[in-house]
């Protein structure tokens, strides 16, 4: 029984991790107006993980997302990876806290927006420290605004997907039953 649970747990985390890779690759192909502005598509599976997986599963998906982005985009040894990893870990922490403590009071839109803001603030801080110095305040407003808008859209999509998806309802049922 436990083995079946573990297998299902690993498989679901791997599917969501693979979806992070897929969306990362997709985002990598979309031309960006400025190199610092990103849509953050790879956060979508993390929002789904918040709805269906227990805490260790969510952390596994976050780990896979960070590693996958480093491997697919080839940035594992670079500042880009450091910025992305720090941003992802901190935003995951905030999203898990809001999702678990807020229960039904905070929607995935709110969770996604808070996660994106946290991630972007951490990345700005590190970029200021390592790359561009005090002039970072010039990038900060468009960077934060773009992150906020895209995260709200992503959160709304995740909220709709969680309500309508058959895949989500199957997995949600399984893990919630076991919990």
């Amino acid at each position: 029984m436990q083995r079946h649970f573990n297998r299902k747990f690993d498989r679901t985390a791997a599917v969501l991790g693979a979806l992070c890779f897929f969306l990362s690759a997709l985002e990598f192909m979309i031309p960006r107006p400025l190199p610092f502005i990103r849509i953050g598509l790879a956060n979508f599976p993390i929002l789904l993980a918040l709805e269906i997986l227990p805490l260790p599963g969510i952390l596994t998906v976050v780990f896979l997302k960070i590693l996958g982005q480093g491997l697919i985009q080839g940035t594992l040894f670079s500042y880009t990876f450091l910025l992305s990893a720090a941003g992802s870990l901190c935003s995951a922490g905030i999203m898990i806290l809001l999702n678990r403590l807020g229960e039904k009071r905070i929607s995935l839109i709110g969770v996604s927006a808070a996660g994106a803001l946290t991630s972007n603030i951490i990345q700005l801080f590190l970029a200021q420290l390592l790359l561009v110095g005090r002039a970072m305040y010039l990038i900060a407003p468009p960077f934060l605004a773009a992150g906020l808008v895209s995260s709200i859209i992503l959160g709304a999509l995740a909220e709709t997907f969680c309500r309508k998806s058959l895949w989500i309802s199957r997995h949600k049922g399984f893990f919630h039953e076991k919990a």
Partner: protein
Amino acid sequence: MKKPDTAAIVFFCGLGTLPAFLFQQDLIIKISEAGIFILLNIFFRKKVRIFPPLIAFLSIVFMNLLSPYGKVIADAGFLRVTDGALESGIMKAGTFLGLLYLSKISVTRETAVPGRAGKLITETFYLFEQLTDEWKNIEEKGILQRLDRLLLTIDSKKKEKLPETAEKSINKFSAVLFALVFLGSWIFIFL
């Protein structure tokens, strides 16, 4: 005797080159090394997009120019270009690009990670390939319906045996060339 894995050699050469590149204080050598990493990327197989790194390079230099220090070497009215800020900007931008391209050469999908985490990563990469293949075959219209169908299709497939080795994208010559770059980067540290 087991043959050495070229992906592993390239990975460890990259890992070994990393500190030599980071500790390099000479601006000319650092920029040259970054240039070599970009050339190696072109040579190895990878497509190098010109504009995003160029914009990143120029943005970092420009941002650094906004905090002037040192002797004024040019005055563009709204912006005073100082030698210290320019040098610092080029150094940071060069480090940023160098690390990015060093990483792109060193890290490939064939880079194996040991242990349980390694198995999970292998499975994730396998599922990623499946998602990419299946995406084209899904006929649902809306993006969310399409995604739901895609996940259900992946779930319904029986777990096939994971491939032992992926197709190699790095040949031995590339690995030897990269090993020479690794040695060269350390020689320049002590010169």
